[in-house]
């Protein structure tokens, strides 16, 4: 850095020193100012902007006015019955609608516009060349959305307290409905930020803006319906252990997908030569492990509770969900560029263990392909192991119609299809890259078309020969949806897919996997490159400044420690 000295202006140097003891207001002010130093700069800027914006002032005023009007109209409508009837839920529902609109529609849409407009106005470029990291940018935008939510919540909270006094609604119902609403709003804001990060071109921004607005409005009406049902059926049962189980499981899914979207949004803003893939892969793996954990816990819990539940069904559902999950994730992973930047190559694992286990987290379509297929394979094996471990002999034989053989067929087919379609897509991307770059949207489109062709072409051929005959046959082996559905049988009623088809799918998957092996091996040959001398010199300077003697290993997989 250059050494231009920053000079103190006389005003700063000669600030008058007060002799009077500071008041508690001044102390509080100083404390908040010190706290503000550690806040995300984007949050500070967005709050300054948003709280002065016309949109916020208008929405806030509308929330207040609507809340006030509903209080008057509602009480007038309820009449004298308000003194002896249980009218809390009705009044609460009105306030819920008033609050849900800004939280479900306005706040997420503002979050989207906030990032999209920065890109349109090119102010984002100026932010991107500061030392702020992309994750800080997304976190700042999200935090700003949360602040807005809190302001709206605080505006309507006296009204919500008032509904409790009208009887008919308990505190926990109010708390949980508000928690769901706030969590939903935060989740939608993350989705909106992801949408803004993904859509770089103006036409994509317009399309996603329109889609988001319609989607949010649809969700708003849906949430109003859901809230009505919750209030009517008094679904918040805090005494029921299943309620907490369902909430904990839902929270896990919410947090893990929220983290994935957050990381994906940040990855979209990350410099092209940076490693965008590894954090996402780690998140996907953790998400998968959590799902298996919850499945195992659910099966164990049901058995401990002595409930008669079809134990195979959670496993089948988990494998189906995982297949969809890894197919979508695998599409993005196989769409990555095979060229590793020098920056990424500086961070490649060096040790044997590191190269064996961590290589699959490196960016690249080959490692991504193996990562997705191996994870799906792992899900099948782990979930079957959990099932075998926790199920007792008494419950073992039928699994409500599903046998171990059916499960084996099902497992082989799901992994086989994933290996086949993802591998075929990867080979196609490889060929396409010779003429033009492949974008993530392009990869998604190609995979969707492949799946559509695999499922649709045999059906069309069959309908052309005999449109009335829609019976499954070996010709539909390329149709993963139909084949997987039949592999577990209707509602677990036994498999309807023969072993030759199973082996056909497995063979196809294996063949495509083998065809992809050369490019995978090529990616595995990437080795760590040395840091440039200039970077090494600066890091040595920084280390020497911090501590000249302490030796700290950088990670458990690395061969040597570093002097810090």
């Amino acid at each position, binding site marked *: 850095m250059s050494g231009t000295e920053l000079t103190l202006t006389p*005003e700063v140097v000669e600030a008058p020193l007060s002799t009077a003891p500071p008041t508690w207001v001044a102390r509080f002010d100083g404390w908040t100012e010190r706290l503000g130093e550690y806040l995300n700069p984007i949050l500070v800027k967005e709050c300054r902007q948003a709280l002065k914006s016309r949109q916020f002032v208008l929405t806030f005023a509308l929330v207040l006015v609507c809340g006030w009007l509903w209080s008057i109209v509602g009480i007038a409508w309820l009449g004298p019955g308000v003194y002896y009837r249980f009218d809390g839920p009705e009044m609460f529902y009105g306030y819920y609608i008033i609050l849900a609109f800004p939280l479900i529609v306005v706040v997420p849409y503002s979050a989207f516009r906030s990032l999209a407009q920065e890109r349109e106005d090119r102010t984002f470029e100026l932010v991107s060349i500061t030392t702020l990291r992309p994750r800080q940018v997304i976190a700042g935008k999200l935090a700003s959305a949360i602040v807005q939510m809190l302001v709206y919540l605080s505006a309507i909270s006296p009204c919500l307290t008032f509904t409790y006094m009208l009887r008919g609604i308990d505190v926990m119902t109010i708390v949980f409905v508000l928690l769901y609403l706030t969590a939903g709003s935060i989740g939608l804001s993350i989705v909106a930020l992801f949408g803004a990060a993904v859509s770089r071109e103006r036409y994509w921004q317009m399309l996603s803006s329109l889609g988001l607005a319609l989607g949010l409005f649809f969700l708003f009406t849906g949430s109003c319906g859901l809230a009505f049902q919750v209030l009517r059926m008094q679904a918040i049962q805090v005494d029921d252990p299943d309620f907490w189980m369902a909430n904990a499981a839902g929270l896990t899914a919410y947090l893990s997908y929220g983290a994935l979207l957050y990381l994906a949004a940040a990855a979209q803003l990350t410099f092209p030569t940076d490693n965008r893939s590894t954090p996402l892969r780690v998140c996907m793996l953790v998400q998968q492990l959590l799902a298996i954990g919850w499945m195992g816990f659910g099966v164990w819990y049901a058995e401990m509770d002595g409930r008669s539940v079809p134990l195979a069904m959670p496993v089948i559902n988990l494998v189906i969900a995982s297949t969809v999950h890894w197919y979508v994730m695998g599409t993005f992973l196989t769409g990555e560029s095979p060229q590793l930047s020098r920056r990424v190559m500086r961070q490649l694992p060096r040790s044997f263990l590191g190269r064996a286990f961590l290589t699959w987290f490196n960016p690249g379509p080959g490692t991504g392909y193996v990562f997705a297929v191996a994870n799906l394979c792992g899900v099948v094996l782990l979930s079957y192991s959990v099932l075998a471990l926790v199920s007792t002999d008494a419950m073992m034989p039928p699994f409500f119609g599903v046998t171990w053989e059916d499960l084996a067929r099902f497992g082989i087919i799901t992994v086989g299809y994933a290996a086949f379609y993802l591998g075929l897509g990867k080979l196609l991307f490889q060929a396409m890259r010779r003429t033009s770059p492949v974008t993530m949207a392009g990869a998604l489109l190609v995979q969707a078309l492949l799946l559509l062709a695999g499922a649709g072409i045999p059906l069309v051929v069959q309908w052309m020969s005999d449109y009335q005959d829609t019976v499954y046959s070996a010709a539909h082996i390329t149709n993963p949806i139909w084949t997987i559905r039949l592999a577990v049988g209707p509602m677990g009623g036994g498999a309807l897919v023969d072993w030759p088809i199973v082996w056909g799918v497995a063979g196809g998957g294996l063949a495509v996997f083998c065809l992809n092996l050369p490019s995978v091996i090529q990616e595995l040959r990437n080795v760590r490159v040395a840091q440039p001398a200039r970077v090494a010199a600066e890091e040595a300077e920084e280390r020497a400044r911090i501590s000249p003697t302490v030796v700290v290993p950088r990670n458990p997989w690395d061969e040597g420690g570093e002097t810090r």
Partner: protein
Amino acid sequence: MVASHPMIELRHLHRYFGRTRAVNDITFTVRRGQVFGYIGPNGAGKTTSMRILATLDTPTSGDALVDGFSVVDDPDRVRRRLGFMPDYFGVDPNVNVREYLDFFARAYGMRGSERKRALSYVMDFTQLEGLATKPIQGLSKGMKQRLCLGRTMIHDPGVLILDEPAAGLDPRARIQLREMIRRLASDGKTILISSHILTELAEMCDLVGIIEQGRMLAVGTVHEIQHGHSGKQRQSWVRVRVLGGGQALANWASERGDVQEILVDGENVSFAHTGDVESEADLLRGMVQANFRVASFASQTKSLEEVFMQVTEGLVQ
């Protein structure tokens, strides 16, 4: 410690957009404390190469280094050392001047008194103290440019990339901005500046590069560019006023090998002279020794505009 490496270095930089070669094999270096003027018509590739240096774009091939760090491999280290002033001013709504600068100071990781000092220094430097609470949408073009320069230097970077900073400014604002850039240069900042106003660049820059259609046509000091961009000897236009009539001087001068294109207008004689400053001095001494009553002797070399037009002749569309 003075770094041995250049502060800015472009190594065979290429940037293609489809078939368009926006930047085509550009190589040059700028050392610490130098001001490099980037000259070229619209669409020549100046902004593209500046954006690559500012880590807003990546090259198709080649590399660019700032203080020895690659913009491709170490953009985060480059960003700490570099301030970029683009040719546009993104307006953040509902933000005043102080809040705008405060945000960027925070974004560069400055806290507490460090941030306050930086804000105070920058607002003083750019003469924006009186406008601290003014919304930035309401600023004039000149004020915006000063604010933009303030943002660029808020984290005290060693390298400044200024893309058309004087574009659209009135003469007063332009002079103010030029003074600020001069002060920055005298503080030891390395500056890469592009401008269409070549006379200003000639006054400010230690080095000048002429770029056209993505290619660097000439690089060197202003003096080198003006006098020897294509390997020719220095040529200047000399005007002499001789009391008693100029024809005799014209006859005398025509016998010299370093004088061409002689024009006579009464007492005034003009001609092209090939040679350095020493040679010019010898020419004047020769006139005096030959008893010509020289009332005035003025020598003028080609302006940067003329050199630019000559270098880019046939390329500029």
